[in-house]
């Protein structure tokens, strides 16, 4: 650790350990009082909030004060990028915990629900720090296994159980592909740690020729595509997000996606540097194709949906496509960007990180609004949301901010993160990719506006019967909206941090 923070090296794991300890504390609390009703839900939510906010504070503190640390012989690194993503995951977890408070009030196994959320968050923080393919695989599994259970949490609801099964089957398939890819990369290079893989590729010390390595890289892309819900492993996303409890949909579509992307950023920039592998397997081309297909498919499918949650699920696929542009336009050369003093690659990765951060707030917020609607039993289709502003003006205003920010209008920070991302892609000379992304954004504005129109303009066929206003979900929705808006003026500060983190990785 840096002398500024006078702690031993292993303290670098503290943000991740905060999640892990919270999960264990929740299990202990549940062991003391296993009967569902006797243990107060407020205690569980409180413990969860403390744990997730502790992770945010710790990672923010290390981000500002401490230098990078390598642990476990370099298999686990705590650097600026991992801390940035841990803070993101912690914030999303806090929102999800707060939003779940009322949502799961009537169900059994509430302590287990929170523990599983925290075990998944532990895995995500580990993914952000993993610096070896073996550590990355274990961490990805630690994210996936609790997620399967969480998606199927409403176990008397057929949709939820079906979604859990589909998620599990696609997840098992892509895990198998991912681990097979890892074995091929290991077979070709003889190394699992990212920097050692790069050294082996650079030194031309490949066993079995470049073909095995290329196939391995392709399969690793498959594993990443599953976690980020990108084509061709996106099939699980609409089903899982629609069937899962709405706060879990928000958790999976923002935090889990961010974890997938940080893995992609680290693996492809550190382990498979472009100048070394371009002769074997040019992964920017693969990401270029995936990015175009993912964003187009996501947005066009979202435009045809009748159900709000499904629309958000497809829009989440579309956003994965936008962030994939950061890897598609990657050059590995350190060429100057349109901004002064910043290389275009670090601008691209920084913009991708910023988009994921902003997305973490606006998308979780949007899913929490759906959670609110589900709590009231409003219904799933667009028409069911008609005229909801009469009953819930504050939440509707927040939802409008989320939706327009998702579309990229300058009411929230979604505008700026998209703007910087497009700037980086243009800086790499791929202006036609930006044109495709702009067409997609314009289309996304159409289907987001449909929901805004339903909320504010349409009149409901039957008046909504709303008798209680859940404080937890409201607080989470409003907090997410406030951060989404505040990131608009505060974008520069955070973006500098993100671009510096990306620069440190390169």
């Amino acid at each position: 650790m840096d002398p500024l923070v006078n702690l031993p090296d292993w303290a670098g794991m503290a943000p991740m350990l905060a999640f892990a300890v919270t999960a264990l504390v929740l299990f202990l609390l549940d062991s003391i009082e296993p009967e569902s009703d006797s243990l107060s839900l407020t205690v569980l939510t409180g413990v969860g909030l403390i744990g997730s906010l502790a992770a945010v504070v710790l990672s923010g503190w290390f981000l500002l004060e401490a230098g990078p640390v390598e642990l476990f012989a370099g298999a686990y690194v705590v650097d600026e990028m991992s801390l940035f993503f841990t803070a993101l995951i912690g914030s999303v977890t806090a929102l999800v915990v707060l939003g779940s408070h009322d949502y799961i009030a009537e169900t059994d196994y509430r302590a287990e629900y929170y523990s599983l959320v925290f075990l998944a968050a532990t895995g995500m923080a580990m993914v952000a720090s993993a610096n070896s393919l073996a550590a990355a695989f274990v961490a990805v599994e630690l994210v996936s296994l609790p997620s399967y259970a969480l998606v199927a949490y409403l176990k008397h609801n057929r949709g939820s159980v079906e979604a859990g099964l589909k998620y599990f089957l696609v997840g098992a398939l892509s895990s198998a592909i991912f681990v097979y890819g890892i074995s091929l990369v290991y077979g070709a290079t003889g190394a699992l740690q990212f920097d050692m893989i790069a050294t082996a590729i650079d030194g031309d010390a490949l066993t079995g020729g470049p073909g095995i390595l290329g196939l391995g890289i392709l399969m690793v892309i498959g594993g990443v595509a599953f976690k980020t819900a990108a084509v061709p492993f996106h099939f699980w996303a609409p089903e899982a997000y629609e069937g899962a409890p709405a706060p879990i949909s928000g958790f999976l579509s923002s935090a889990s996606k961010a974890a997938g992307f940080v893995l992609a950023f680290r693996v492809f920039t550190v382990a498979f540097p472009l100048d070394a592998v371009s002769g074997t397997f040019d992964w920017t081309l693969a990401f270029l194709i995936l990015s175009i297909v993912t964003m187009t498919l996501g947005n066009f499918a979202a435009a045809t949906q009748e159900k709000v949650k499904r629309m958000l699920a497809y829009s989440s696929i579309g956003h994965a496509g936008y962030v994939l542009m950061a890897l598609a336009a990657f050059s590995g050369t350190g060429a100057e960007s349109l901004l002064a003093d910043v290389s275009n690659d670090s601008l691209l990765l920084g913009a991708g990180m910023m988009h994921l951060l902003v997305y973490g707030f606006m998308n979780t917020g949007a899913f929490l609004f759906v959670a609110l609607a589900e709590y009231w039993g409003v219904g799933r289709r667009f028409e069911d949301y008609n005229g909801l502003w009469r009953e819930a003006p504050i939440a509707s205003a927040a939802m409008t901010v989320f939706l327009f920010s998702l579309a990229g209008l300058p009411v929230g920070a979604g505008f700026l993160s998209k703007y910087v991302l497009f700037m980086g892609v243009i800086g790499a000379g791929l202006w036609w990719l930006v044109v495709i992304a702009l067409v997609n954004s314009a289309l996304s504005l159409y289907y987001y506006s449909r929901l805004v129109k339903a909320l504010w303009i349409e009149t409901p066929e039957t008046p909504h019967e709303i008798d209680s206003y859940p404080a937890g979900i409201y607080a989470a929705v409003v907090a997410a909206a406030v951060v989404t808006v505040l990131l608009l003026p505060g974008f520069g500060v955070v973006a500098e941090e993100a671009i510096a983190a990306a620069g440190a990785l390169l």
Partner: protein
Amino acid sequence: MSNPWIAIGALAAVAILIPVAMIVVSALLRPRVPELSKRATYESGEIPTGGTRIRFNIQYYMVALLFVVFDIETVLIFPWTVIYNDAVQAVGMTRALVPMLVFIGILVVGLGWAWRNGAVRWVRSPRAQRQKVER
């Protein structure tokens, strides 16, 4: 000429040929005596009862999962005990002992949770009880 794959291909051909040949020859030679008891699921004289779609008690899986907890624990603790003395001399007591205690502690939390939530309480199946009474 001396391609090792030729030998493997020949082996594969033989491996397919022998069972196919045995099936064909026995089909040609054997007498055919169709009778009802030969078509039964079990030719051992056991009469099958009921359908195949029975629900197994979930607790078999609970016990299996708890077994996995102990299994993994054992697999890690055995090599650890073997090198423990050398490890203490090499890196000191703290670094040799504490990680294992943390590991066992996490497993104990999980086991305690499962115990308190009734995973090891063998609940009687009401359906099985009923069937016993009917008999």
